[in-house]
């Protein structure tokens, strides 16, 4: 097991990691680090290299070049794998084993002794809402139940870091919420999470830092709010008046970079939403208009993602 980690210590260190499939370069010399206690999100479109990176870190694939260290041990080594829990993309528990036997099998593979294994399995299955049906074969489980069980199997080795590849993809709302709740509890205990996801809102809510990956390269890496701020032009002011107004006159106001009409509203993009809001109030007064609604909007993570990765790549 790794030495005791303090918050902020580097757990995962990736340097110039590269992996190709034939001529296709799935991961192109990426570097990043994950620190203790973080929830680190890997966000990107399909085929961007998220899953390949996750699989190299969890020891399923070997990189062609570069290095990936977990607790200072090479990814894929027994020492590295012993410290991590893994929820692979579209992984299943053994359908012909019960939930309980799946948990016990994982306990044996992680070297967890019998008594501790039984205690942990009982605790996790209870938290995952599966304790009552622990003797049911996994083939009788719904997709949501199977995914919950796979999370339980990942936790039984008492990992210091969890790797999850699209864990809530295709799940019903209830299972997805339960899973996210458990991940927050896991993180509250000071443990680290590496998660790949398509879901902008999930990344926004769960992650302390996000790496946006596109075409095998990292396009941006920062806290979600900072990534949004980095796309300053996406700040906007949404305004509607009590009677129709000529669009061109609104668009010509100082500080408006671009404008979209949406129903009875104007959405004005600017780098300085505060000043623009004041200008709009003056504009309304001088034209004898009444403002019905006015809102300043920060860019969403989705806006930032599309800007960084390119339109249509979501």
């Amino acid at each position, binding site marked *: 097991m790794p030495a005791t980690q303090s918050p902020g210590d580097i757990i995962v260190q990736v340097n110039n990691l590269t992996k190709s499939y034939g001529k296709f370069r799935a991961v192109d010399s990426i570097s990043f680090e994950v620190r203790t206690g973080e929830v680190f999100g890997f966000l990107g479109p399909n085929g961007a290299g998220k899953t390949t990176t996750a699989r190299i870190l969890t020891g399923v694939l070997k990189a062609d070049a570069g290095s990936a260290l977990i607790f200072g041990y090479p990814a894929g080594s*027994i020492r590295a*794998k012993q410290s991590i829990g893994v929820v*692979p993309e579209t*992984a*299943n528990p*053994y359908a012909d*084993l019960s939930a309980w036997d799946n948990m016990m099998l994982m306990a*044996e*593979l992680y*070297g967890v002794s019998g008594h501790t294994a039984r205690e942990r399995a009982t605790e996790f299955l209870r938290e995952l809402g599966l304790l009552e049906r622990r003797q049911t074969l996994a083939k009788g489980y719904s997709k949501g139940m199977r995914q919950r069980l796979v999370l339980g199997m990942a936790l039984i080795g008492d990992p210091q870091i969890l790797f999850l590849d699209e864990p809530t993809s295709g799940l019903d709302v209830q299972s997805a919420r339960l899973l996210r709740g458990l991940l927050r509890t896991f993180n509250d205990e000071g443990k680290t999470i590496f998660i790949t996801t398509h879901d902008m809102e999930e990344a926004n809510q769960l992650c302390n830092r996000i790496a946006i990956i596109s075409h095998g390269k990292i396009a941006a890496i920062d806290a979600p709010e900072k990534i949004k701020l980095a796309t300053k032009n996406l700040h906007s002011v949404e305004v509607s008046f009590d009677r129709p107004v000529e669009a061109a006159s609104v668009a010509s106001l100082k500080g408006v970079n671009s404008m979209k009409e949406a129903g009875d509203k104007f959405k004005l993009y600017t780098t300085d939403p505060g000043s623009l809001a004041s200008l709009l109030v003056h504009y309304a007064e001088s034209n004898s208009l009444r403002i019905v609604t006015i809102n300043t909007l920060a860019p969403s993570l989705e806006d930032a993602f599309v800007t960084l990765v390119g339109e249509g790549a979501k």
Partner: protein
Amino acid sequence: MSTFAIYLHQLSRIWAIAKKNIRIYYAKGPVVIFGVLLPVFLFLSFIIGRQLSASVMVPGLLGMAIFFTANAISPAVAPWETQARTLERLMSSPVTIPTIVLGDILASFIFGVAISLVPLAIGLALGVSIAAPFVLALAIILAAICFSSLGLMFSALPTSQPSNVMMLSSVIKFPLVFISGVFIPLNELPAWGQAISYISPLTYFVDISRHLMQGAGQLPILLDFMLLLAFTLLFTSLAIVLHQRTMPRRI
């Protein structure tokens, strides 16, 4: 954790993987029944109508039973796990690829040895005496490891379709049975037949059985053991090397 402790832990994980395989793939009524019936019926179809004594028949039957059962299921385990999407989870747990391969071999070995007790019991019931039971037990253990490893070599084909692997396995297994002195003792084969028979590891196990049940074999028994051991080491090493190459390609 010391390097020694890491390797020691892998031994218990080999056993965990073997237990999982036995529960999921082997300990099923139809599998066990098929494991017993296939070699028995195949053997009967060749000996009915021929005037052979039990001590001539049983070594062949025993060889067939171990050969067919020890690699009946093992070639399909990796494709099944690929298809069922359980392999990535297994590979990301703290085990090495050799650990997974050895776990598969161990499960197959246990199944092969267990099923071999049936023809052995038939032989004893028919009055066959075994000159040195412990030597035969050692031969059964070695042969079961050898044939299980052969099965694992087949499963290295990186496919998620068990039928592809089973077809390859059958194409190789059936001809081997016919050249291994199972139905016709080696000394009754022409010289070219004997020459071909030496490429089959089953030949050496059947020859050891004939030494111990009939009182005579074609080769010195020590040589039989050495060659069976050589095949076992070769197949086990090849199975590990091949899976190390192909297992990541299954994901």
